[in-house]
């Protein structure tokens, strides 16, 4: 395999994820039309757009729940269009959902332990026999869960069933659970909806902190305050990216004001 002479992609080394000309339609409804988007390694990248713009659909395509009709998603310089959700997750690409998806019959602590799944490799047989390897791994997962619970201020509710938590804490738990296995790219779909002001502040702090530790964050939100922590913001409207750049510049863009801010 030849390498250096003809680079197949023009990916700048700083792009962790690229969405290239992705289109998707449901029946006759064109939800995404040739969307392009780049997420720089180590950045917090935002995506805003009115309801029904196709943001969640884009998320589903990036995370592998949906296949694009056309176009491709490039992760680490490699197209991942045919790779399953699980394999993307193992490669460090993790997402949350617009409606929080906690494991309702598990406690907060157990949710976090389940979040560590891909850090272990004990098989079902070892688990059944309770082999030392399996026990050791589980103990490690439990320690990590305890640390993460502390970090995300979930300790007071650690033994509460996740399904019984208020939405705000469910979102926080989902974030903690997504972050627990040190993903490279964390995609958050409307993480601030249903949160009160304090909780949004806390969320913004957590995101900045995770980002400073090297996690790349891809953020969909309506919340202007939260978007403040994004370096680059893309605006999606009726399935097309109509602007992208620093938040202040995007906010000033007349097309964005017209389409999104309704001014």
């Amino acid at each position, binding site marked *: 395999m030849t390498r250096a002479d003809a680079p197949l992609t023009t990916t700048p080394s700083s792009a962790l994820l690229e969405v290239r000309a992705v289109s998707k339609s*449901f029946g006759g409804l064109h939800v995404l039309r040739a969307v392009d988007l780049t997420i720089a390694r180590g950045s917090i990248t935002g995506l805003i757009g009115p309801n029904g713009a196709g943001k*969640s659909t884009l998320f*589903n395509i990036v995370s592998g*729940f*949906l296949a694009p009709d056309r176009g491709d998603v490039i992760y680490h310089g490699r197209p991942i269009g045919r790779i399953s959700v699980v394999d993307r997750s193992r490669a460090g690409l993790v997402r949350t*959902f*617009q*409606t929080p*998806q906690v494991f309702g019959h598990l406690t907060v602590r157990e949710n976090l332990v389940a979040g560590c799944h891909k850090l272990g490799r004990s098989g079902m047989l070892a688990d059944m026999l309770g082999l030392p390897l399996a026990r050791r791994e589980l103990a490690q997962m439990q320690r990590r869960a305890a640390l993460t619970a502390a970090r995300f201020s979930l300790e007071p509710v650690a033994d509460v069933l996740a399904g019984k938590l208020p939405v705000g804490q469910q979102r926080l738990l989902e974030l903690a659970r997504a972050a627990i296995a040190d993903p490279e790219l964390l995609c958050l*779909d409307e993480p601030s909806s249903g949160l009160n002001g304090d909780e949004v502040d806390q969320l913004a702090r957590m995101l900045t902190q995770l980002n400073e530790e090297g996690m790349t964050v891809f953020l969909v939100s309506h919340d202007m305050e939260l978007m403040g922590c994004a370096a680059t913001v893309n605006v999606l409207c009726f399935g097309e990216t109509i602007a992208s750049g620093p938040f202040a510049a995007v906010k000033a863009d007349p097309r964005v004001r017209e389409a999104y801010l309704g001014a």
Partner: protein
Amino acid sequence: MTTTLFIQSLLAGLTNGFVYGLIGLGISVIFRGTRVVNAMQGDFALVAGIAACLALDWLGLPIAVGFLGGIIAGALVGWAVELLLIRPTQARGGSEDSLLLVTLGGAFAVSAAALLYFGRDSRSMPGFGGNRSLDVFDAAIRVHAVWLIAIAIVVVVALRLFYQRTPLGQSILAASIDPEGAATIGINVPRMRTLTFMLGGAVGGVAGVLVSPLITIHYEMGLLLTLKGFTAAIVGGLGNPFGAIMGGLLLGLVEAMAIVFVSSGYKDVIAMSLLILIMIAMPNGLLGRRGRVGG
């Protein structure tokens, strides 16, 4: 193999096909109106068959009246099932699995009650036209089977008109598609669901009284009928009642061919394999809508 035998099998397949179609039609009616897959549709038929049988045996009623009694019995069981099984399960937040388990339990209960009452023997029942047959290309078809086909067609057409033309039919659909919206425009949603089950029960009853003279009544017949009706409904698209008849015909003919070319012992194996294969082939298309992930 002679042509006569072949035609004979085709006719049998056609008749069975309409029976499966009617069961599938009942499953579709209930699914369309309540989003519940009713695992006791075949047992509605069993109840109706038994009721008709008793009406004919004990009371010596004319056939048509006995049949009508069977159909009413089917509707009553449908009503009871909605009231006693479905409603409490949903009130306690039962999942899809709970609903299925509850209707399965209902199916086993009907079958067990029939066993207790009738024992393990089969019962035969008189049909329209006695035992007389018609000749079709040297093959014979029972007069009753011709009635069965005709009535099945009438039921399908009547149901179609009911859903399309009558306010009640429209209300039932509205109550199922958008329960909250329907309630705000004054539709009594719980009542629509009860009516749906009664309608499903009546359709099951039609199938039951019509098929019983052809196959004899047996306490175990419900579950297999349900599975075949479900196959028919799936082939035709679960949300689309009129596809069920087409699905039933397809299944009936496939079974007939299986009997001719393989052996009659394997006909249920082939029908059930068909069911599984079809479900695997269209896991997303089953409900006529795709599941959405996390909004």
